[in-house]
Every structure is written in C-alpha cells, then in structure tokens.
C-alpha cells in the first residue's frame, strides 16, 4: 500500500510524510510537481520528456494533491489521472489553503474525493487518510468480487452451452440425437415456411440390424452404428444438411432447400456409402454386408402442415423401400406427402 504526496512545497511534503510515518504508513512517495507524479504513475503526458523515477507504474492507494502548483496545477493533474483507465479509481484528496476554497468546486468536478485545508492538521489528515484507505480497500474487494462473479457467470454460461450441446448429441455416435433432430427440424421447417423453399427429409434404417446384433453381439452392433454414422458424415458435404440418430438403428437427414430430386440423389449417395464400407453381415437377407434402406420426403412447409407430416411421409417411403426388398431408396408418393 502506498500514498503519493504531490506538492511543490518541500515543507508540506516533509510534513505530510512525517505525519503519515508517525501513524505507521511507511510507503510514502513524494513528487514536487504534477509532471513528476504523472511520471511516477507512468501516465503519458505532453511535455513529459523523461521519467525522473525508475520505480514506475506504482500501486498507489491514495493521492494527496496540492491544488496550486506551477506548470501543471492539481486540477489538471486530477483530470488526467481520472481519465486513465488504470488509475481512475485512486482516491485523490486535494490540499488547499483556506482562501483557495473557491477552487474546491472545480477540484471536486475534476474528480477529487475530498479535501484538506492548509495549514494541515495532523489529526484531521490521519483520520481522512484512514477512512479513505478503508473505503478504497472495500471498493477494491467489491471490484474483485464483481470480477469473480463475471468470471463465474462466463464459466456457467459456457458450461450451459456445452450441456445444451451435449443434451442434443447422441452419446454413441456423436451426431445429433432425437432431441437435436426435433429442434433442428422445427427450425428448418419455419425457415422453409418463411422462404417458401422445399425441405426434404431422409429416414433410413440399417437392414436386419437385429440379426446383426444377434450374430456379432451388442458391442459390435454399436461399432456398426458408429461406422455407419461416420460414413454418412463424410458423405454429407453441405453445411446446412443435418444428420441425426433418430432411433436405435434409424438415422435421419434434414436437407434444407432441397427438392425431391436432390434428396433422392443424396439418399442414394448414403446408400452407396453404407454399402461400400463392406461391413460383413452374414445374417442379412439382402447382402453379405451391411446395407441400408432409405425413404425420402419433400415438402414446402406451409400453414396447413406440420413437421410431423414430413416425418410420416418419409417413414412411409422407408416402409416401402423395405417392402420392395431393402438396400434401396424410395421417395414418398404425392398422396403420402399430402396427408
């Protein structure tokens, strides 16, 4: 803790230092001019050529400042300190002769917190310094607490964001889960309604996945789900396309601003991607490797329809893909999309 005394009178500097020392304040800095004080605080200022002190940028807790000084007066100095982001909270007490009281208003306007009249009275000086230092300490503690709270808030916010992210992710595959899918579909539905653009959805199933699990075990089943999800991630290139794990072995892909033709093409790409993994599936009835069946549906979202209509239509198309022999893509029929 240090106290900076700025006064052009050596008598006053010595007197204040001695009074403060007698009360146990040991770290007293003296400056005989406002410019020297600015240099001590390391505040840049016009006309300040070189810093007279090597000890710079000090941690000052209070400044006792003479109002009337040659070159730069206390008022100007006070304004400069109060304009410095780093130093603006240092309390400044003006010291002034009784007949300079008209300057007090200007002094307070410039940012001084209090004043002491000259000739100085020891008891008054020490009482004033003590109470201001106490106030400064409390202010510093409050500021530190506020800073701590801001930090905590930030941490809480990012933890919440992360939690939100995690709550919409599938733990096994790392892609969106059903919750994430529902939110995203709702968003894209509304966007499509505003922009009057088609929204497509692909629903797909791993063929005979129950048999896969029965044959290779659940751990292998999980591995298969991860591999399929990864191959789909690699296949989907457009940033707006959104892949999700819809159910056990069921996946969904939301395709904004995509018509039926586009959806069919992407669905076919996904089918090929799954097949080209060449993941052995000896109990599948359609191939000796893992395959998928896909249904697509496309709608222009409107007032009279809902996202669930799109899901139903894609689900019906998926059902037909399975019915017609699996390992294929089927688009929803017009009447499926209209119901």
């Amino acid at each position, binding site marked *: 803790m240090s106290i900076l005394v700025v006064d*052009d*009178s*050596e*008598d*006053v500097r*010595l*007197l204040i230092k*001695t*009074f403060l*020392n*007698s009360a146990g304040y040991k770290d007293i800095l003296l400056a005989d001019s406002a410019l020297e004080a600015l240099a001590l605080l390391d505040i840049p200022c016009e006309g300040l050529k070189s810093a007279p002190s090597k000890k710079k940028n000090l941690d000052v807790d209070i400044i006792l400042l003479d109002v*009337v000084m*040659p070159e730069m007066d206390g008022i100007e100095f006070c304004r400069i300190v109060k304009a410095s982001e780093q130093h603006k909270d240092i309390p400044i007490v003006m010291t002034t*002769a009784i007949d300079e009281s008209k300057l007090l208003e200007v002094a307070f306007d410039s940012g001084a917190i209090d004043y002491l009249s*000259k*000739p*100085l*009275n*020891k008891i008054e000086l020490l009482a004033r310094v003590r109470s201001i230092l106490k106030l400064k300490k409390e202010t510093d503690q409050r500021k530190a607490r506020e800073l701590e709270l801001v930090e905590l808030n930030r941490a809480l916010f990012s933890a919440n964001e992360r939690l939100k992210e995690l709550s919409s992710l599938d733990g096994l595959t790392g892609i969106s889960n059903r919750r994430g899918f529902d939110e995203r579909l709702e968003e894209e539905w509304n966007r499509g309604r505003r922009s009057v653009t088609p929204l497509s959805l692909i629903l797909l199933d791993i063929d005979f996945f129950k048999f896969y699990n029965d044959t290779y075990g659940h751990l292998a089943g999980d591995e298969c789900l991860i591999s399929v999800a990864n191959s789909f991630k690699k296949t989907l290139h457009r940033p707006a396309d959104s892949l999700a794990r819809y159910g056990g072995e069921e996946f969904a892909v939301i395709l904004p601003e995509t018509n039926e033709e586009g959806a069919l093409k992407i669905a076919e790409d996904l089918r090929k991607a799954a097949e080209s993994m060449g993941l052995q599936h000896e109990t599948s009835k359609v191939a000796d490797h893992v395959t998928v069946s896909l249904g697509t549906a496309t709608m222009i979202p409107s007032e009279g329809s809902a996202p669930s209509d799109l899901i139903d239509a894609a689900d019906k198309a998926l059902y037909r893909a399975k019915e017609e022999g699996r390992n294929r893509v089927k688009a929803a029929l017009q009447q499926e999309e209209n119901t």
Partner: protein
Amino acid sequence: MGKEEKIIVHVDADLKSIIPRFFELRCADLDLINRNIEKGDYETIRRIGHSMKGAGGGYGFDYISEIGVAIELAAKEHNTEDIRRWVDELSVYLKKIEVLYDE
C-alpha cells in the same frame, strides 16, 4: 517583542527530525525574498509567502503562517515597505523561537 525574550512554541515530537530543515528553508526564504525585492520580482515573493502560509501552522508555527499571509498580501500590492517589515519580523521571530516537543 524584546530582544532577549524567548518565544516557546510547542511542536509535535514526531516532527523533531524535520524541524531543523524547516528553519533552514525559512532562512532560505528570507534570502530569496531580499534578493527578489532588489529585482522587483513580486510574483516570486508572493509564492514564497503563500508557501509559508500553508506550511507554518502545520508544523505548529502559526505565527509563521500569519507572516506568510502578510507577505503574500504585500507582494500582491507591490508594497516593498511592508514586505521588508515582515521579513524583519520573521527574522527576529526565528531567532527567538525555542521549540518544546510535546510527546
């Protein structure tokens, strides 16, 4: 004030170490004022009076503050006669002071 008469001034014992410097500075003030009377630099004299006014009482020498006030005023009025009178007064006063330190 008689020449032999001593003036007892009670001063805070904490100030013991800086009182000699205070007197040195007052003697320097006397020299400086005298030199500036010759030069007619009343602004410098006014400033010295002003500083004396602000410092004296703080050390316990209220009368030095009063002399400071008088010198400041006389300098403002360019009243050389009054300045000389108060300089003499200060000079005599400094010689008569006997400091008693209050523990």
